[in-house]
């Protein structure tokens, strides 16, 4: 087992070059050859021209914070590879709308047929669409100088790593990079012909000095069939949003183990950047949390203001409007006949609300009550409203029937 010599190395402290193995030999199948692991703080590694990191943590917020820290602090000329795996999480893109992309209520209830804790909701810093991460999914991240940036370059690198491994080859599948810079697998179908499945998605973050390309790779996730419901929001037909919408594709596992994938990618990376005898640094949770900048980034990523408040402007309406003339989906909940609702939400805050048709007990003029209730909702944060029934009750000075409407709004948001 390769872990024993590694553990030994760790315990013996910082070991240097003389323990470097012969990397050139069969690194693609090199599950057994030890690679030197550094135990000193990973930040000391940031000045090197080629850097390779693996995270021990499965906390998606922490891993993204480490990644961001690497983006900000690695030497401007360096090229960095970072590999990590997350516990079950739904990860939305920087500018996406969680109410539109995710079924938040289903998310809170957890994966179907699973007793595990509910998946974590994360908003990453790079663009792109919504994905599901779990232990069967590997994340890889390359940071390089802007002149060297190319959307396909490192996707091709991962494809090379995959091609050499047993899993993909055994399934008779061919992996390649498609036009959207995703990695797909073409499988021969019994009936004849070829079906294409997505096995990896990519996203990018570009700053003035550095370019980041990170992507996933579906290795052996057990949850492929369970995730669909989480990524379909009941509010979809009612929300018109700016920002990026997700593009759905059929997905497949390539059928590989995490370690063999990681080793293969590291191997291809070393080949590409001529880093035959460089170090690989394992980043542990404690070590990362000891770093102020990582913690600062972590705080940002975990705050509701980031996760929900970074949502671009969107409108929600029960009926077709000038801005959004689509026909609305049917509503199965029992609502008052004349009920209409329209919200404009910016950065998670209700900027305008127009509810009508609510049923009040003893009001002199229902229409004015609707106005008062609507005005009371303005400037409230959508993501602070835990239960619409009590929110509506509090917003109305006159007793109002909240059950039907409140429940339906809870279902929407």
């Amino acid at each position: 087992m390769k872990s024993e010599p590694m553990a030994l190395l760790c315990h013996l402290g910082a070991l240097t070059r003389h323990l470097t193995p012969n990397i050139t030999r069969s690194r693609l199948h090199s599950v057994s050859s030890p690679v030197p692991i550094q135990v000193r703080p990973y930040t000391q590694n940031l000045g090197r021209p080629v850097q390779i990191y693996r995270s021990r943590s499965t906390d998606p917020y922490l891993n993204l914070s480490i990644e961001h820290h690497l983006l900000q602090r690695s030497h401007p000329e360096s090229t960095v590879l970072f590999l990590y795996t997350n516990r079950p999480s739904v990860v939305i893109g920087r500018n996406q709308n969680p109410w539109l992309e995710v079924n938040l209520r289903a998310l809170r209830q957890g994966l179907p047929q699973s007793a595990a804790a509910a998946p974590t909701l994360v908003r990453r810093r790079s663009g792109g669409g919504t994905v599901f991460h779990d232990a069967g999914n590997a994340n890889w991240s390359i940071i390089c100088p802007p002149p060297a940036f190319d959307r396909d370059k490192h996707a091709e690198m991962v494809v090379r790593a995959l091609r050499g491994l047993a899993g993909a080859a055994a399934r008779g599948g061919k992996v390649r990079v498609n036009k959207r810079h995703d990695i797909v697998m073409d499988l021969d179908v019994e009936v004849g012909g070829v079906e294409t499945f997505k096995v990896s998605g990519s996203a990018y973050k570009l700053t003035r000095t550095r370019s980041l390309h990170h992507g996933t790779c579906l290795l052996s996730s057990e949850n492929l069939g369970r995730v669909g419901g989480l990524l379909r929001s009941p509010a979809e037909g009612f929300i018109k949003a700016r920002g990026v919408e997700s593009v759905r594709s059929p997905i497949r596992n390539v059928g590989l183990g995490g370690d063999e994938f990681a080793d293969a990618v590291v191997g291809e990376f070393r080949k590409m950047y001529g880093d035959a005898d460089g170090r690989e640094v394992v980043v542990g949770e404690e070590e990362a949390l000891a770093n102020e900048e990582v913690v600062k980034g972590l705080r940002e990523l975990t705050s509701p203001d980031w996760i929900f408040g970074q949502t671009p402007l969107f409108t929600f309406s029960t009926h077709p409007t000038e801005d959004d003339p689509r026909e609305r989906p049917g509503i199965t909940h029992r609502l008052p006949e004349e009920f209409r609702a329209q919200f404009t939400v910016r950065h998670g805050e209700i900027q305008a609300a127009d509810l009508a048709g609510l049923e009040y007990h003893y009001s002199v003029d229902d229409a004015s009550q609707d106005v008062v209730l609507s005005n009371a909702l303005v400037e409230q944060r959508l993501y602070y409203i835990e239960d619409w029934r009590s929110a509506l009750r509090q917003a109305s000075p006159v007793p109002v029937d909240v059950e039907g409407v409140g429940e339906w709004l809870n279902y929407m948001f």
Partner: protein
Amino acid sequence: MARALHAARPLLAVKPVLLADIGEGIVECEIIQWFVEPGARVEEFSPLCEVQSDKASVEITSRFAGVVKKLHYEAGEMAKVGKPFVDIDIQGDVKEEDVGALAPVQALEKETEPKPTQAPVRPPAEETAASQVAILTEHETQSTPKGRGKHATLATPAVRHLSKELSVEISEVNGTGRDGRVLKEDIYKFVERRKAPSAPASATQPPAAAAFTSPERSTTEAQQETPIALTRTQEMMFKTMTRSLSIPHFLYADEVDFTSLVELRGRLNRVLSKSGLSDSQVGKLSYLPFIIKAVSMALYKYPILNARVDVDSANNSKPTLVLRSQHNIGVAMDTPSGLLVPVIKNVGSLNILGIAAELARLQTLATAGKLSPQDMSGGTITVSNIGSIGGTYLSPVVVEREVAILGVGRMRTVPAFSTVPGEEDRVVRRQVCNFSWSADHRVVDGATMARAAEVVRAIVEEPDVMVMHLR
């Protein structure tokens, strides 16, 4: 004026900055969010905005030091690469390689023409900004009363050098110089305050954001005063109320039994929902049209309540009462921009359905912020449904050029004793509502008000009476 100074320089300092090529042949991208606002100071490499193109999230930083003057796009709009996306008043040196990022010379020349005409238009806005800054500097406050965003601060290169030396963010310093310029003394004072433990974190946070952060301030702080200019609606309210409250008011309040009206309304709404409706008709009646009609009916008996008082300044300030034939009943409404009072004209000529339709029309316009001056003018008496905001009794304020106002409180269910003969001990449910009348005591006496209020109450408590008055 800052603008006048710049116009005198041979080189125009405000330059449109082009959106740099972000590579990959991308011609346009979506602005996700801005990190600056007009008036914000930026340095070289300050983040300006974040854009998204397909799956890439790109941070755009500034090439120049200066003050942001104008954003060409709003968040959510598509920005074109190679076209101006922000105007910056450049205050540093422009490097050779960055000149290309500025709009070409022809565009600049076009800018020179509008400049002189812009100058007279701009000053009012800039003046209020400057005067607000002046208010700031008069009170020695630490907060930023101008709301969100950094305010425009100008500083000479020497001052900027000092601020860099002392690691001070210029935008956080209150400028006491002309036009809010930051002077050396301001920097020194800021540094001192920064050292002092009493400098609260909230000083640099805009007050609007402070509303959402949890109160972390200690209770031993000194009182902080934050002058805020009144909104236009508030200003109007201020003027109106100051005038109104020079009128001596008296209050007459009464509890009105709505039970019969509740029954009648229920019956009428059932009829309305069964019959096919034309577009102009209302689908469901509220109580307000009944109340408004009852008031109008009372005004026929007591027309003084529909009058106004004119004080003739030419004739020794002699007051006259001006009676008015039409009942134009104003209905107070809570709108997003505050309390407004649109008017239902000539209620005397409208039936309940007509009043309801007009009420609905005005309510829709009010919510949309589209009431016309026509809708708001000519009121002779006002009904204020502030029961909608909560409150049982109220003391409404008579509107200018009127002499009376009716405030309708909340409807509530109360126990009462039956009035059926022989059953006087039985407790029954009643729906009641409090009517609070205010009137100008200079011309309306208590007895008149009481009698008029009685008429309204009688009609509302026994709405079938209206049948008797049908023509």
